[in-house]
């Protein structure tokens, strides 16, 4: 059932899910908006109270349902609105990223970034660079439930 290394076809429309924490990166995304920065439209943001709310099952579900890239954006360690939320998220994501790579999923498909509410430009830059990375990697066929192919 294994597909050969996927060749990025022309009209491959990548799909990226971004989990943004309400206090920092979601506000950073808002600031990117007010500053009229631009970044690719295939990134869709889901608001969570804190990066520690992101359960690995959400990420695996996203890949299962056809996401080509998932990015978790939280507050800079030390700035978390809930004091320690992003510290737990950091450990969870470190282990998850290592395991996904161990299973053969391209390591760049899951990314963690710390973006504060004041870093509108950084948010746009991070999203643009992530979209380029995923475009280069092409469609994600690993961990994918083929029945969900749109």
């Amino acid at each position, binding site marked *: *059932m*294994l597909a050969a*290394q996927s060749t990025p076809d022309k009209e491959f429309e990548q799909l990226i899910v971004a989990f943004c924490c309400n206090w920092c990166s979601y506000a950073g995304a808002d600031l990117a908006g007010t500053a009229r920065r631009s970044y690719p439209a295939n990134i869709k943001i889901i608001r969570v109270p804190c990066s520690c709310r992101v359960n*690995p*099952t959400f990420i*695996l*579900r996203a*890949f*299962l349902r056809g996401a080509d890239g998932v990015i978790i954006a939280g507050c800079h*360690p*030390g700035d978390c609105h809930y004091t*320690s939320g992003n*510290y*737990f998220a*950091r*450990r*969870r*994501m*470190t*282990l*998850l*990223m*290592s*395991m*996904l*790579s*161990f*299973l*053969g*999923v*391209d*390591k760049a498909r899951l*990314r*963690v970034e710390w973006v504060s509410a004041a870093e509108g430009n950084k948010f746009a830059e991070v999203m643009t660079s992530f979209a380029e990375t995923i475009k280069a990697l092409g469609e994600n066929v*690993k*961990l*994918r*439930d*083929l*029945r969900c192919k749109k």
Partner: protein
Amino acid sequence: MQKIEQLIKEKARDLLAAGQVTSVIAWQKGEMFYDNAPGYFDNTEELDALVYNAFCAANLSKYLIANTKKDEKTAVFLKPCDTYSLNQLIKDRRVQREQVLVIGIPCAGMVDINKVKAQGLKGIIGITEDGDNLTVETAYGTKQVARAEVLLNKCLACKGSAYAVSDETIGEPMAVKHAPYDRFAVVKELESLSPQERFAFWQEELSKCIRCNACRDICPACSCEQCLFDNPESPLAGKANNNSAEEQLFHIIRAYHVAGRCTDCGECSRVCPQGIRLDLLNRKFIKDINEFYGDYQAGADADTNAPLLSFDVDDVEPGAATKGRE
């Protein structure tokens, strides 16, 4: 190990007779001589079915969950590696410590019957232990086999003869003799492969999974009242895999849930009917935890905080695991 079986029987008889405990958990004869099953004894008559020999690999600690729910006192005989699992269950409050009488019993390493057969022996009738060797009686004559060559994989990573928790002990501690063994060797080998090769390996390995849940049911670290996958309310409910992605999903999530709880007792891969190397997933997490957050042996004691339930302000950044590697 014969002598120890005798001591265990006597101990069990005394405990039951004195009414100190209402039941005893040990091993009992199974269908085949090498196929012993966990045994539950609540009266002295049944005790002669009790056995303790080279084929008692089963980790009995998980059976205490059900027992300690009833207000009865239970005695359990645990090998050194099983005691780590009991500590973890106590930490997870799945076992009431005061309702358990833990009796530590020595172990010289349990034998894998498949490895004995792999030595070209056919028609095996029985195996007796003497010193570092085993005498294998077959329909075509007897043969001596070195115990070290036929040990279970999990015994190659033996954690030593010390008991992590015990009220009493029986017999003298025994060392498990085996060739030098790095439990992370295969993990490191897999890490050095390309993502394509790794994906192919796991695709192949996990596609054998028939979702019999044996690994989940035997695992002492996997002790939820109602598992996520059995809970109709949970978005991930699902008894069978509809395709490979769900297989991988089940095993990644299970490994993730026991990360920091898994004592590396090796039961999951031992009981897996399809022989999937599930222990590699757990060992990958253990290797990462040791590398990033300091060596941690789950169940070594009943109170240090599990790695995923604590943090350090200057932990490594998430990309660290795969820096400099494909």
